[in-house]
């Protein structure tokens, strides 16, 4: 990975349960974005959290950001079978770079 680790690399839970995925990064960031990817498909933008924000919600998604620990978490509540996908965090840094740096991703499986 260019940026850091996502934890866990794979997660399997029952439908209705909550799923938590973590992401760590290495550099100072401007923002962090979470994406979902179904197998072999495109990356779907889920949520953006700015470096001066600590928590953000969107529907069943809750994202936290701890810049002191250089980490973020994505919580999906009341999971559904359709949430089965890989989830990636990606960071945009202050250092003038025009790129998102991706973590390794968590493969989430929701069992019906």
């Amino acid at each position, binding site marked *: 990975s260019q940026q850091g680790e996502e934890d866990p690399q794979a997660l399997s839970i029952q439908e209705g349960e909550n799923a938590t995925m973590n992401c760590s990064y290495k550099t100072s960031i401007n923002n962090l974005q979470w994406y979902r990817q179904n197998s072999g498909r*495109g990356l*779907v*933008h889920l949520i953006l959290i*700015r470096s001066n924000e600590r928590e953000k919600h969107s529907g069943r998604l809750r994202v936290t950001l701890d810049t002191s620990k250089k980490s973020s978490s994505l919580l999906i509540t009341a999971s559904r079978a359709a949430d089965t996908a890989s989830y*990636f965090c990606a960071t945009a840094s202050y250092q*003038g*770079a025009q*790129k998102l740096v991706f*973590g390794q991703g968590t493969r989430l499986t929701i069992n019906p």
Partner: protein
Amino acid sequence: AAGVIQSPRHLIKEKRETATLKCYPIPRHDTVYWYQQGPGQDPQFLISFYEKMQSDKGSIPDRFSAQQFSDYHSELNMSSLELGDSALYFCASSLSGLRVNTEAFFGQGTRLTVV
């Protein structure tokens, strides 16, 4: 709402051939990014453009080149293709780059298979 359009969706080429991938950003987006994703891997940044100028460069082989045109669409040219170039290639676009906290939206990708 219009999304990022990539073409073609699938491409099969032989070794040493050339491929051109195209990306049409979301209307009014001025920044384009290219990524390569191998099987089971995270997306790897290749190159980005802002207002038709190259903005940043990642692990893009010398055999690859890219540009952004006056209408903001972008093309990734890949020459002397190797088996290892087989991957999903994604294009993304955003408005005014990433420093102003704008989301980057990705296309569906082009699956390139080199045989």
